């Protein structure tokens, strides 16, 4: 026989349908969102994985100053280190030999001539010739006649040979000493004598590119930097979301995401590097899922940066400097990221030695596992998915507590029945199972419906959200068993254990206590004495005291939601605030960084642009504290710091103070991010070398646009071993027109400073709006459920009070005002908590990323975030008022037993 108590469950569901409907809809929605996120995530990860194989993705890339020869390519492919010491020795010997040879030759010439002269003079003296002119003539003549023979003779002499050998030996010894010293430095710098070094053979591919100016609306102004590759590349291939690869010289294919952002469609004409191209394809490069121009960029920029391809013929004709970028693929693939780090470390060492030996500067090195453009999107999706997952679990836990409270109230209400059932022989477990069944059934319904909408509706919403931000390949929905577990098992487990805990402890009392309605675990305490307030005030306080657990859950819920509201309003505000303030602080409109300070003819590159001023800059690395570094958020363990050297009396960097070597000013962003102040020590290191520099902070320079350090140019050149007067580029408020594009490596403009926030706003802004309204609804649901519990629990008291003559309005004031006060007070308190949490979280988040901006919420945002919560309460209070009004007077009499 089935337990007849189970028949109650469907009836209870039907009777209390509004309450359970709210819970089920809420759970369906929450579980649906997580399910959609997981399914979308798994489907996209599958698509990305298959596109990596199809696109023949790199294991890493590097850029050199010059093109490699075929032999050099073969040598690098072995993965072996070049013998830098040998190279330095050879180079040193060669130079030394040449010097010795030259010195010896001139010395010998001198000696031979002297010997001839001495012989002639001796002869003249013997013959009595004293006329100096005659002697000179005789000497000249003798040299003319005998020099060659004498020289040859002298060269053969043992004496000369010995002297020469000695000279060589001495010179070589000097070279060896010098090289040893130099080698010690270099090997230490690059850790070249690493005993664990293993050769990692690779296959290299040329993957040259041009960074061209793109003008997508043909208004004659540069809109975007477009990185162009050849359409016949065999590695890092693109998949086409629309259209095809270019086939003629005037055709081009560009990134789909960028095209969508700036409104370019197939068939449109765009100007690239001054030439017009027809867009024939919209693509997604396997190594550009996010449009990161540089690997160190805080955020990708699908507006200001673009990638694309042209035919090899068109590629040859592109005007800007060619970047000698090479792609490598390991012959034996690393198994995971940890192994990839080992592989990359070894390969980079080998590469550094090669670049030294080839005298070809390594300008950039990015292994695939650290490549933001490849890893940002998957890890962002991963991060979003787990963050949403955790959020949903917290909300389900809250719902579970609400359920537990509802069940506790039912247990109290049914106390006599439970006593009778226990007295009749029903076990505690049977009753626990019975009371557990409702929350479990509701959760199962929520999970099933949630997964249904997750797999259908929400998955598409989620996927669209990511397609709006990332250049992803096409995908197909995959069945995800892990998503099923996370969206069904975890909510059920949460619901099960929370309710089990509460219900079991509630049912622990003896049957007799249930029969007597004596459900206090401890002996009845004396009633709390209240201050001498008005009767109504004391009545209200009693209501609160009597419902403390309900109010605690309400407070927890209010805090949780308000913290999230603080984020939902503060995040867009922070972006706006940064976008508004950062450009105002820009010290120059444009920073032109040159490929070299001299042009092809060896002339220093100059400009006539008024106000243009030379500056120096280099990039050093600031190590981050590892405990703040969060994998998958885009940043690594270190951050690139731009170090500027400015001219004395610079018109751009307003610094009049004398600064000794070893001191720097740091930007306010730098100071805030790492908490540095005047007098603190900084230790910055070279990116690919072990060399590091120590600086003392001389002061803070008010500039929030970048994490940067400043020093006078002379100090800069001294510290970084440059010649006096060396520089890296020009600051200029006006556009510089008279420097050939091929000498310009990068231009940093106003857009570069705000592209972080532009992009974040684009990909998250819409989502935040939705999030705000979701939270509003959440606030309503939570407050509705809890106030319903409180009122239901007091139904017979309310009814009795009505019999006694209390008016509906008075009763509403008694039973609703405490909730209103609680909600309002804790909304305010939670806002402050939320603000503190968000400011802290933002700092941690920014520490894990490169760059800086702080959490900011505008007064309007702050008020709105609290208003949403209070408005949610107002909606519920209308329903509560109705509920109180509808409680009949006979309720008290009917339920008297």
């Amino acid at each position, binding site marked *: 026989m089935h337990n*007849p*108590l189970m*028949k*109650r469950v469907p009836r209870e569901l039907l009777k209390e349908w509004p309450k359970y409907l709210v819970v089920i809809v809420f759970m369906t929605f929450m579980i649906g969102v997580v399910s959609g996120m997981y399914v979308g995530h798994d489907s996209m990860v599958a698509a990305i994985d298959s596109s990596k194989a199809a696109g023949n993705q790199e294991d890493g890339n590097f850029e050199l100053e010059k093109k490699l020869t075929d032999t050099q390519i073969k040598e690098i492919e072995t993965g072996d280190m070049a013998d830098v010491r040998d190279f330095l020795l050879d180079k040193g010997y060669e130079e030394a030999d040449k010097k010795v040879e030259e010195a010896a030759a001139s010395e010998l010439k001198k000696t031979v001539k002297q010997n001839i002269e001495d012989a002639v003079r001796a002869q003249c003296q013997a013959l009595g010739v004293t006329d100096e002119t005659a002697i000179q003539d005789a000497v000249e003549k003798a040299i003319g006649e005998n020099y060659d023979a004498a020289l040859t003779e002298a060269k053969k002499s043992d004496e000369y040979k010995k002297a020469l050998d000695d000279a060589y030996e001495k010179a070589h010894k000097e070279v060896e000493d010098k090289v040893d010293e130099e080698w010690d430095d270099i090997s230490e710098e690059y850790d070249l004598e690493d005993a664990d070094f293993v050769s990692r053979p690779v296959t290299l591919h040329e993957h040259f590119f041009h960074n061209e100016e793109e003008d997508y609306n043909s208004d004659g102004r540069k809109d975007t930097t477009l990185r162009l590759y050849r359409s016949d590349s065999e590695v890092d291939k693109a998949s086409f979301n629309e259209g095809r690869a270019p086939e003629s010289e005037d055709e081009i294919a560009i990134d789909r995401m960028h095209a969508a952002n700036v409104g370019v469609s197939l068939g449109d004409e765009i100007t690239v590097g001054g030439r017009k191209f027809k867009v024939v394809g919209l693509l997604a490069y396997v190594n550009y899922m996010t449009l990161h121009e540089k690997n160190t960029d805080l955020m990708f920029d699908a507006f200001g940066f673009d990638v694309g391809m042209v035919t090899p013929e068109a590629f040859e004709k592109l005007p800007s400097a060619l970047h000698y970028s090479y792609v490598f693929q390991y012959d034996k693939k690393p198994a995971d990221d940890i192994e990839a780090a080992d592989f990359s470390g070894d390969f980079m060492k080998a590469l550094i030695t090669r670049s030294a030996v080839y005298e070809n500067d390594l300008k950039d090195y990015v292994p695939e596992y650290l490549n933001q453009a490849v890893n940002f999107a998957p890890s962002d999706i991963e991060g979003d998915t787990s963050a949403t997952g955790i959020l949903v679990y917290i909300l389900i836990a809250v719902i579970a507590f609400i359920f537990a409270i509802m069940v506790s109230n039912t247990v109290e209400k049914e106390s006599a029945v439970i006593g009778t*059932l226990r007295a009749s*022989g029903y076990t505690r477990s049977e009753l626990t199972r019975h009371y557990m069944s409702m929350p479990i059934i509701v959760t199962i319904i929520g999970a099933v419906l949630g997964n249904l909408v997750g797999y259908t509706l929400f998955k598409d919403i989620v996927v669209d959200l990511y397609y709006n931000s990332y250049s992803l390949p096409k995908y197909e929905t995959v069945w995800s068993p892990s998503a099923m577990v996370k969206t069904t098992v975890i909510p059920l487990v949460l619901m099960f254990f929370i309710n089990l805990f509460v219900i079991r402890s509630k049912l622990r009392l003896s049957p007799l206590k249930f029969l007597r309605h004596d459900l206090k675990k401890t002996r009845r305490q004396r009633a709390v004495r209240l201050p001498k307030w008005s009767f109504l005030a004391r009545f209200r306080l009693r209501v609160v005291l009597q419902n403390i657990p309900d109010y605690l859950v309400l407070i927890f819920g209010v805090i949780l939601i308000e913290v999230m509201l603080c984020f939902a309003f503060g995040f867009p505000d922070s972006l706006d605030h940064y976008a508004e303030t950062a450009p105002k602080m820009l010290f120059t409109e444009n920073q032109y960084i040159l490929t070299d300070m001299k042009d092809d003819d060896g002339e220093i590159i100059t400009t006539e642009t008024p106000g243009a001023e030379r500056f120096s800059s280099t990039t050093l690395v600031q190590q981050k504290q590892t405990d703040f570094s969060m994998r998958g958020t885009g940043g690594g363990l270190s951050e690139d710091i731009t170090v500027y050297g400015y001219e004395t009396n610079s018109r751009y960097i307003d610094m009049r103070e004398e600064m000794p070597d070893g001191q720097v000013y740091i930007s306010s962003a730098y100071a805030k991010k790492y908490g540095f102040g005047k007098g603190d020590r900084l230790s910055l290191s070279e990116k690919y070398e072990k060399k590091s520099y120590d600086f003392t902070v001389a002061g803070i320079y008010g500039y929030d646009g970048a994490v940067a350090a400043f020093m006078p140019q002379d100090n800069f050149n001294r510290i970084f071993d440059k010649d006096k007067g060396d520089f890296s580029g020009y600051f200029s408020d006006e556009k510089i027109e008279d420097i050939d594009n091929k000498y310009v490596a990068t231009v940093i403009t106003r857009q570069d400073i705000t592209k972080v926030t532009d992009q974040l706003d684009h990909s998250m802004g819409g989502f935040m709006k939705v999030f705000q309204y979701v939270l509003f609804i959440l606030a309503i649901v939570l407050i509705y459920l809890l106030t319903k519990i409180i009122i239901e629990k007091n139904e017979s008291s309310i009814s009795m009070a009505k019999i006694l003559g209390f008016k509906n309005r008075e009763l509403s004031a008694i039973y609703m005002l405490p909730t209103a006060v609680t909600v309002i007070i804790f909304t305010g308190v939670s806002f402050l908590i939320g603000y503190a949490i968000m400011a802290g979280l933002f700092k941690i988040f920014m520490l894990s990323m490169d760059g800086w901006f702080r959490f900011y919420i505008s007064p309007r945002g702050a008020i709105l975030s609290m208003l949403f919560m209070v408005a949610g309460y107002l909606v519920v209070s209308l329903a509560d008022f109705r509920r109180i009004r509808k409680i009949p007077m006979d309720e008290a009499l009917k339920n008297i037993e």
Partner: protein
Amino acid sequence: MAGESTSFLEIRNLKKSFGKGETRQEVLRGMDFSVAKGEFCVLLGPSGSGKSTLLNIIGGIDTPDEGYISINGDKLEEMDEKAITLYRRKHLGYVFQMYNLIPNLNVKENIEVGAYLSDNPLDVDEILDILGLADHRYKYPNQLSGGQQQRVSIGRAVVKNPDILMCDEPTGALDYKTSKEILALIENCNRKYGNTVVMVTHNEAIRRMADHVIRLRDGMVRQNERNIEKIPAAELEW
């Protein structure tokens, strides 16, 4: 004193007190009596005489401070909580002054709640007929009068076919006529199914329908006698 030779339920030196120190109140002060199998036994006494406490201890939902109870030779004090629950489940039926029915189960289902607990339950439909509830079987408790609800609660207790039917003031909340009907039903069940009935009441008249009457006062047994001139419940007057 009644003969104890056929004792089914034995109560020996039972003591129980509540509270501590000055507020300590001795409710049972050493009770001794036995009830034979199949007997209709009435525990009679004014309020505060300890009759309900006694009934709760017999029912295993309260424990004595001293003394013991044995049912069919099994001592309750030697049982752990699980065993006592099992004992209640298999051997006891309870009827309270308040009916304590489950509001969202209908009449038949409320009786099934009792039947579910038993290994050899009686036929639910038969019980409905005997209790005169056949026509009301699909009604919910709030559609029934007090007397009807008490019938359902008797049905829920009897359907288990318990060895002992414990009744705590079963007519306490009912009017004269309905009370008599309820008493007749209990009597009928006792006769028909042979359950031992232990009924607590303060109503003097009810003793006349019992086989065995135990009077309690101040936590002591004042009188323990067999009723020789037992009359049917229908003939009771008060």
